[in-house]
């Protein structure tokens, strides 16, 4: 237990759903990003998976829309401490996008329009754990929240769910991304409170 803060009560203890350590519940959907929101013309939008042998698998917006989609309802946990529960999305599972991709890579390096990057093990993108999401709560995903499409990997802190996703490089080695290079954790499991390097 930490040092007691004299006179601090905190919110009434609820018997509600358990949150990861250090997180608090919000009903809002706060926005966090490091720079201006990029605007991507839909006719030039593309999503590319590049394998470790430089083989490219490419989808235009129309091609992405033509793929079977899923509507996961998931909890979001942001490293800035807020959690938002029961959010519903629509998007294409990475299992679908990876189905024709031949790879022996262990890691994924995700890159976005605007230059953002993040890294995670490839295994965390598979088996129903990740989507390229383009709708939130039934509406087109707003640019400030990553529209037209963002990665959604809800079992990791939300910075791994790269907004404005443009592609994924599959790699043998784990290359740190934007926040990871700035001191944030390489994996980012909220239930183990892996916020920063060394956590």
């Amino acid at each position, binding site marked *: *237990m*930490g*040092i*007691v*803060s*004299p*006179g*601090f*009560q*905190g*919110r009434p*203890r609820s018997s509600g759903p358990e949150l990861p350590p*250090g997180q*608090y519940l*919000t009903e*809002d959907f*706060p*926005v*966090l*990003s*490091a*720079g*201006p*929101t*990029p605007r991507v013309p839909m006719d030039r939008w593309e999503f590319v998976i590049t394998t470790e042998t430089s083989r490219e698998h490419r989808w235009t917006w129309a091609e992405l829309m033509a793929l079977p989609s899923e509507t996961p309802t998931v909890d979001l946990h942001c490293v*800035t*401490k*807020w959690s938002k529960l029961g959010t519903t999305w629509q998007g294409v599972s990475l299992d679908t996008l990876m189905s024709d991709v031949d790879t022996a890579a262990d890691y994924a390096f995700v890159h976005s329009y*605007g*230059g*953002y990057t993040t890294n995670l093990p490839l295994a965390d993108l598979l088996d129903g754990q990740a989507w390229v999401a383009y709708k939130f709560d039934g509406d087109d995903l707003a640019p*400030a929240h990553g529209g037209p499409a963002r990665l959604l990997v809800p079992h990791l802190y939300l910075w791994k769910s790269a907004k404005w996703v443009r592609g994924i490089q599959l790699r043998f080695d784990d290359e740190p991304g*934007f*926040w990871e*290079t*700035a*001191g944030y954790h390489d994996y980012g499991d909220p239930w183990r409170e892996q*916020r*920063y*390097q*060394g*956590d």
Partner: protein
Amino acid sequence: MARAAIPGRLTWRVGKLAEARAETPTARTLVLDVPGWPGHLAGQHVDVRLTAEDGYSTQRSYSIASSADGERVELTIQAVPDGEVSPYLVQTFSPGDPVELRGPVGGWFVWRTSGMDPVLLIAGGSGIVPLMAMIRARRAAGSRVPFRLIYSVRTPDDVYYADELRRRVRDDAGLDVTFVYTRAVPDGWPHPPRRVGVADVNTNGWPPALTPDCYVCGPTAFVETVADILVALGHDPRRVRTERFGPTGG
């Protein structure tokens, strides 16, 4: 985007409130003594952890307001209505009381005193806090990098660091400050309240050709608007760094 690195593991430290200063009726600066504090860059933040007697604890992130100064760290906290942590820090937390914190955190929304390019700071409300750290760091380092601050506030009473900003504009060569009032203006102000627009940024910022480093901090809608304006005026998006204070900062 460029890369930035901060090394090492972040451990929880116990700070003690040395003194507190009211900035506005709802915001207070906490001057903390934090033994072992490793120093910080202007623009970084800390995680603060409060623990109640029954062991319940909760955390929030707050920007650091001060430039690096030994083991002293200043935070300016806005009390969020119905917030869980900020009303405690603004109203209850008293000199001598301990608080746990760890940091500094964040290696992107920072200004380094080695910087040579002109700097444009655009603050909305409590978004002034990390930008004030940059103004203070510039002064502490004796930097001559030209700084411009555009500070949007609701009313003259909502200005943080009002006396210090007046003093710095007078004494810190190369620092310009422009206020934009959104609800009420001071007596004799040349125009009615308004929001920051293209003209404000164009007139009181830097031309894109000077390749300024731009820092925008405030509520989400403010940051979205201002960042879009900067890009539309021709600023390189990679030189526009943003930090948002959401409505859930409580």
